């Protein structure tokens, strides 16, 4: 399979502080890849390295198996969309979109009529037809972001890079733009990388997600792979609403606090970390091994009801989704068991 972008041993440090360390990553042609991670995990630095806005301390970046590291930003032909749009305030919307075409050397610059046609097409694509004469200050945040995207698409980039594209927008606009970005991507088929710290956004929008931590990629996979089969303890803790419990694994039994559960721990033995999400726990049927858990509180989250449970003294409380109509109350003792096991040996 062809590779659109490949990072090889990429590293970048600022004044001795490493932002990206020895990073390898492959992006497939036409895919929408989300770079997800906590702030300071190096995802934005990686995006800027791909764009050529930063030069790497070590390693290289290949576009279609051709070394792009030696190319300057302007020769890389990337479409970059900035978090705060970075529109040119003295130019109107149409002039902003046309900018990348107008700065080309005369030999490759399209004719004026062609530029106007392209701008009109792009305005149509981003649903801003008729607003070409407006200035950026006369647009809403969502509209500005769409102008920024149109401007980036105008130069027919080899890859599209978006840095927290919806970070500065309010929740409603965010959701709309998210869906719309997916549609645009499906229509234009650009290889697209976008940085976000919002996991809901990443998991909903992307074909694949790369989880960043401490300047490196912990796992790359489809949203399902990331959610259901986290490769590392960090990923298991970062995605979903997991509670981390210190446990002890011994082959066919797991010790949680004073309780023993009979289940297969795979190849993990000794001190370990168990990541528990609300749906990983269930009420135990009689013959199953169970932990007697005390109900601390019951609350409503959307359509479901959740019980906050204390599995043992000294362990952080965990949450469990309750079956419909279950009459659990504060102070009850419920038999619970694990239906999903996300277990990682302690480091």
């Amino acid at each position, binding site marked *: 399979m062809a590779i659109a972008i490949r990072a090889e041993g990429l590293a970048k440090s600022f004044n001795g502080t490493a932002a990206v360390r020895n990073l390898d990553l492959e992006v497939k042609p036409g895919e929408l890849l989300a770079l997800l991670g906590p702030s300071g995990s190096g995802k934005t630095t990686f995006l800027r390295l791909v764009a*050529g*806005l930063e*030069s790497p301390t070590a390693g290289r970046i290949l576009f279609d198996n051709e070394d792009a590291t030696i190319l*300057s*930003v*302007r020769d890389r032909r990337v479409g970059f969309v900035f978090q705060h749009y970075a529109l040119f305030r003295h130019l109107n919307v149409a002039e902003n979109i046309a900018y990348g075409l107008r700065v080309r050397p005369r030999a490759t610059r399209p004719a004026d009529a062609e530029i106007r046609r392209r701008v009109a097409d792009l305005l149509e694509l981003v649903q801003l037809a008729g607003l070409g004469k407006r200035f950026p200050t006369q647009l809403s945040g969502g509209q500005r972001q769409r102008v920024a995207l149109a401007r980036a698409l105008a130069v027919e980039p080899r890859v599209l890079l978006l840095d927290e594209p919806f970070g500065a927008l309010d929740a409603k606009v965010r959701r709309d733009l998210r869906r719309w970005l997916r549609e645009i991507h499906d229509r234009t088929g650009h290889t697209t990388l976008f940085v976000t710290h919002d996991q809901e956004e990443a998991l909903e929008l992307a074909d694949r997600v790369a989880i960043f931590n401490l300047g490196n990629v912990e796992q790359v996979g489809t949203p399902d792979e990331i959610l259901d089969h986290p490769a590392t303890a960090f990923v298991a803790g970062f995605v979903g609403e997991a509670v981390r419990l210190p446990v002890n694994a011994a082959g066919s039994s797991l010790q949680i606090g004073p309780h023993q559960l009979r289940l297969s721990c795979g190849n993990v033995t000794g001190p370990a970390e168990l990541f528990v999400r609300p749906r990983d726990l269930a009420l135990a049927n009689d013959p199953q091994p169970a932990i007697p858990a005390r109900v601390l509180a019951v609350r409503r989250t959307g359509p479901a009801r959740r019980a906050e449970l204390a599995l043992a003294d000294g362990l952080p409380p965990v949450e469990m989704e309750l079956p419909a109509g279950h009459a659990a109350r504060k102070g009850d003792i419920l038999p619970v068991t694990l239906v999903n096991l996300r277990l990682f040996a302690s480091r």
Partner: protein
Amino acid sequence: MRNGVLSESPAVRRTLIALAVGFLALFLVLPLLAVFSEALRRGFDLFIAAFAEPDTQAAIWLTLLVAAIAVPLNLLFGISAAWAVAKFEFPGKSLLVTLIDLPFSVSPVVSGLVFVLLFGAKGLLGPLVDDWDFKIIFAVPGIVLATIFVTFPFIAREVIPLMQEQGTAEEEAALTLGASGLRTFLTVTLPNVRWALLYGVLLCNARAMGEFGAVSVVSGHIRGLTNTMPLHVEILYNEYNFVAAFAVASLLAGLALVTLVAKSFLEGRYGDQLSRAHRH
């Protein structure tokens, strides 16, 4: 680095730095050096001797006196105007703020002229003033008035924007806690603007002691009586007494340097407590 796409190439960079440094050296640094060099040209003794002259000493005293009257009055005005403008909403507010800056756009000579037209021998109130046997023009009061006029906006324009930025929430909190109006002002408002006030006073004082054009028009140039330091520099210079002229000038240049150092210090140390224009 970065192939010169995100920043200038080293050659361009060096050229621009050389141009900027050269230009500033030519127009700012050299004149300053010239003042001290000319003052010391005939040796240190003659330099010192210039200050022994009674007329020179009188000029120094008059300059200090004028600044000592003009600066506090403008300080009081700056605080009053800032309180009224920043803490209250009333129509015509922006007009008031614009009018405060008016003296900046008036030529110093015209600033002096308006007082001559008002109080001079053939002025509007001239006969009246004569009757009282109280001289304003060609006397100290005229010099003070002209100085107040040209230094009028300095303090107000530092404090007004800062107080506006700060809003009224802290004062309202103090009032709800039972503080009186004056106490609120002294313990809440004043500490918030003290560095901006000092900054304004510094600039106001520098201009008050150094003003030439406006004061020249109203002073009458009477040696030992109505000569401020800048006027005395002119007289000495026109008498070809260059060493003495530059000696007095070097004192004023020293004042300018002290002002600049204090100003940079305030900008560096308390920049966040000055009006936005001076933050770094």
